[in-house]
């Protein structure tokens, strides 16, 4: 099969620097540089990697260009030694991606201010998979994998320093993970809500300005969340951020096309609101300044394994189990290991999109290798499957029995304000069809891997040590109390055929 990005051209390439819009018909040049092709003008670019070509039309394909080399494992052209900067490099995803990219030959740089470490510590929790301090992590990456990661301790809100670093590195892609990823953390109190929005919204807004000034051709790959969309009770499909061309709004016997417009967002916490605000800021910046970006509506992430983090204990990425930073599957597995029932909120019929860590990393590599055109804001729904929370609990319980653990399931009061019974139909066609993504990790496979890693004595002891941070205490109504239990039941005792099932469209 032909590599999915073979026909992409300089229009997509971050090495292509816009030099002018020339109106050869009028022997004139437009004052404003725009990457827009019109009948009367010719866009001229210069390649930052192939200066010898002078100025030319942006029509060289990745397949034709010697700077893009075919990677057979991914069947994708990769920009030679592509400079990728990861913001939030110390995090669960940032560190894992840094190692993955480094192994693939990318030149990785990154920043972090260790805020995630501080937040988790502040809440009295810790990562159950132990991680070392950054200097040791970097040394291990060098020793074990031979990687040179250009890391700088830096707060994304420090625009001057960020600008300096971007100017120095000139990244060709920027992966933006430097946000607080927790809904409950943003609902603790006013101070936490404000801090989350300040970091996320203002951090991203500042980044956009700095990119405009330093690396306007670079591709911003920004982590959003499926939670931006909410879960519409009408069951209308969740498109990939933007309505498809044939979507129509009908009202009072009149119809309008919705094609190309942003789809509605219905965030479900102040954290999710910050992600929605980011969406609009990024969308506008692409429009105003011809930046390019992927907004990734990532499903709930889970898992511990990639080949790179498993290469040495010092290379492991963090894994949180607390109510603020633990994602649902990661929490279920730790609950199971502790012998606690798996807690599902309310009816437990929330349907969520999920993706395993390694699959998410595969998606990121593919997104980095397929930059949108300059000026284009694009959105992908990054999920590999949809599952109801209560079905998920059944799966975790089933896998736990292979490890000799007898796991129960418990329904508790929902601390959140959300629908706990709703339909969900998700469209996720871009990654599998346009970018060549194939999920490789099944729920069972990765959950099994998690049990293997998390039942190791040292890690199990760390889980035991912090078991008091598992039960949710942060309620959306502001009342400080632990959720009470409705019922506890054995897996396999409920009729799982009833209720809504998620529908995932992966074909065009």
């Amino acid at each position, binding site marked *: 099969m032909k590599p999915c990005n073979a026909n992409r051209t300089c229009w997509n390439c971050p090495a292509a620097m816009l030099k002018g*819009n*020339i109106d050869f*018909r009028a022997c*004139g040049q437009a004052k404003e540089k725009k990457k827009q092709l019109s009948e009367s003008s010719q866009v*001229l670019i210069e390649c930052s990697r192939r200066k010898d070509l002078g100025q030319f*039309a942006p029509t060289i394909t990745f397949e034709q260009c010697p700077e893009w080399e075919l990677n057979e494992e991914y069947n994708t052209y990769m920009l030679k030694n592509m400079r990728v900067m990861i913001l939030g490099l110390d995090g669960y995803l940032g560190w894992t991606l840094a190692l993955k990219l480094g192994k693939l030959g990318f030149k990785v740089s990154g920043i972090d201010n260790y805020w995630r470490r501080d937040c988790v510590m502040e809440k009295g929790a810790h990562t159950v998979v132990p991680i070392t301090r950054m200097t040791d992590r970097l040394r291990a990456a060098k020793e074990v994998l031979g990687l040179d990661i250009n890391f700088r301790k830096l707060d994304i809100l420090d625009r001057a320093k960020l600008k300096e670093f971007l100017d120095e590195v000139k990244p060709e892609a920027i992966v933006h993970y430097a946000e607080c990823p927790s809904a409950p953390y943003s609902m603790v109190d006013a101070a936490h809500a404000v801090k989350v929005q300040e970091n996320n919204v203002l951090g991203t807004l500042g980044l956009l300005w700095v990119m405009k000034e330093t690396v306007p051709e670079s591709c911003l790959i920004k982590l959003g969340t499926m939670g931006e969309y909410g879960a519409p009770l009408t069951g209308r499909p969740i498109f990939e951020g933007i309505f498809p061309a044939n979507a129509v709004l009908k009202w009072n016997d009149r119809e309008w096309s919705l094609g190309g417009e942003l789809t509605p967002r219905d965030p479900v916490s102040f954290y999710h609101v910050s992600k929605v605000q980011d969406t609009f800021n990024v969308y506008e910046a692409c429009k105003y300044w011809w930046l390019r970006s992927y907004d990734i509506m990532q499903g709930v992430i889970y898992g511990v394994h990639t080949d790179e983090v498993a290469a040495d204990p010092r290379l492991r990425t963090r894994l949180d189990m607390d109510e603020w930073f633990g994602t649902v599957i990661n929490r279920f597995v730790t609950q199971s290991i502790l012998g606690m029932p798996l807690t599902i909120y309310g009816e437990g019929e929330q349907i969520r999109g999920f993706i395993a860590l390694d699959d998410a990393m595969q998606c990121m590599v593919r997104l980095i290798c397929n930059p949108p055109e300059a000026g284009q804001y694009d959105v992908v729904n990054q999920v590999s499957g949809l599952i109801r929370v209560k079905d998920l609990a059944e799966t975790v319980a089933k896998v736990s029995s292979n490890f000799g653990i007898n796991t129960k399931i418990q329904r508790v009061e929902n601390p959140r304000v959300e629908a706990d019974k709703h339909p969900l139909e998700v469209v996720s066609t871009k990654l599998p069809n346009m970018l060549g993504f194939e999920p490789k990790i099944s729920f069972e496979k990765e959950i099994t891997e998690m049990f293997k890693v998390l039942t190791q004595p040292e890690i199990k002891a760390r889980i035991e040590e912090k078991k008091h941070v598992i039960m949710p205490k942060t309620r959306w109504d502001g009342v400080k109390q632990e959720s009470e239990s409705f019922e506890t039941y054995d897996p396999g005792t409920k009729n799982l055929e009833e209720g809504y099932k998620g529908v995932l469209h992966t074909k065009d």
Partner: protein
Amino acid sequence: MGRIVIIGLDGVPFGLMDDLANRGIMPNFANLREKGTFKAMESAIPEISSVSWSSIITGVNPGEHGIFGFMDLIPGTYTLSFPNFNTIKAPTFWQKDNNKHVILNVPSTYPAKPMNGFHVAGFVALDLENAVYPKEYIPKLEELNYRIDVDSEKGHQSKELFMKDLFRTLEARHITAKHLWDDMDWQTFMYVITGTDRIGHFLWDAYENKEHEFHKQFLDYFKRIDEMIGEISNKMSDDDSLIMISDHGMGLTESNVYVNAVLREHNFLELEDADRINHNHMKASTKAFALDPGRIYLNKEGKYPKGTVKKEDEEKILQELTNVFQNLEKDGKKVIKKIFRKEDVYSGPYLDDAPDLILMANKGFNLRGTLAKKELFGTDIFTGMHTQDDAFLFVKTPKSIKIPENPCVIDVVKIMNEIKGDK
């Protein structure tokens, strides 16, 4: 020793200069005309500014300087590139002697290179930063509000804004010229006004049609230029020589002719379906394709990635192409005036890079190389188009020199050399 001043007026035909001098709109030029030689001059083939100015400043034909159009293909690819001043293969007159030169706004000289004197490149100059030598002069240019070119976007948006921008750019350029004249010590001063070409493209009809709402402004623009010519000639001493030139003429466009659409209709060219069509989307069955304006290239095997035309078939295809274009008509009018083989018009080491056929159109037919059009003919916003045979040349010199009977653009350097007494 007398100095040489060259004033270039991009895209101004002999006929317009003559007409405006006769009508009293350009009195200074009318006065000069009496004291020198004023002739029509042949432009380059094709009559494109970059080709023509390259010939004017080097004194050689495209087969020697290597510039055949605004855009050319990167060798071995179908990617259009913009040949710039680094690409030009022959030395310019200011690179050939030890004199001090001021070169202001000469098209196709971007990026500026080190030289003895001062140089600001003209269209296409992608940024001021690389258009100026020495760079130390950039702040001064900025202080003088110097502008490389009119904003052509304005021509598409509003003729009114466009006119304002034309005048603003002209004034800034002239202030800069006067500053350089006084500030520098020079033997050659070359100063090109390019707004004349832009006004011609967007508003040629305003010149020809006295009722046109911009007719007066069109004439005012040239009146202002005439005042500038007067100012400059008054600054010259009796020893100095003045050469005025244009790179090509201008005339009314009746119809665009989409050369690639003609090639498609006659199955010389086949294209894949694509959103943003470019030469990469040609199918391997393509025998010939065109670049602006009427440059036709055979899709030769070994020369292009999808080239399939074998050497032994070349002559036959060239004949077929010639037949097609000789017979091309619109409303009973023949479109093509002449068809040249490359050997007919070019000579020199870069002959291989030249188009295989060069079409020259009859009056009013504007040849275009776009791939985006399916129809053979059409019109657009532009009312003026380049013409080949009526650029102009004016020479006023105290020296006794011979000016060719039928001058063409490559003669300008020879004339300068004669004035200087060089052979």
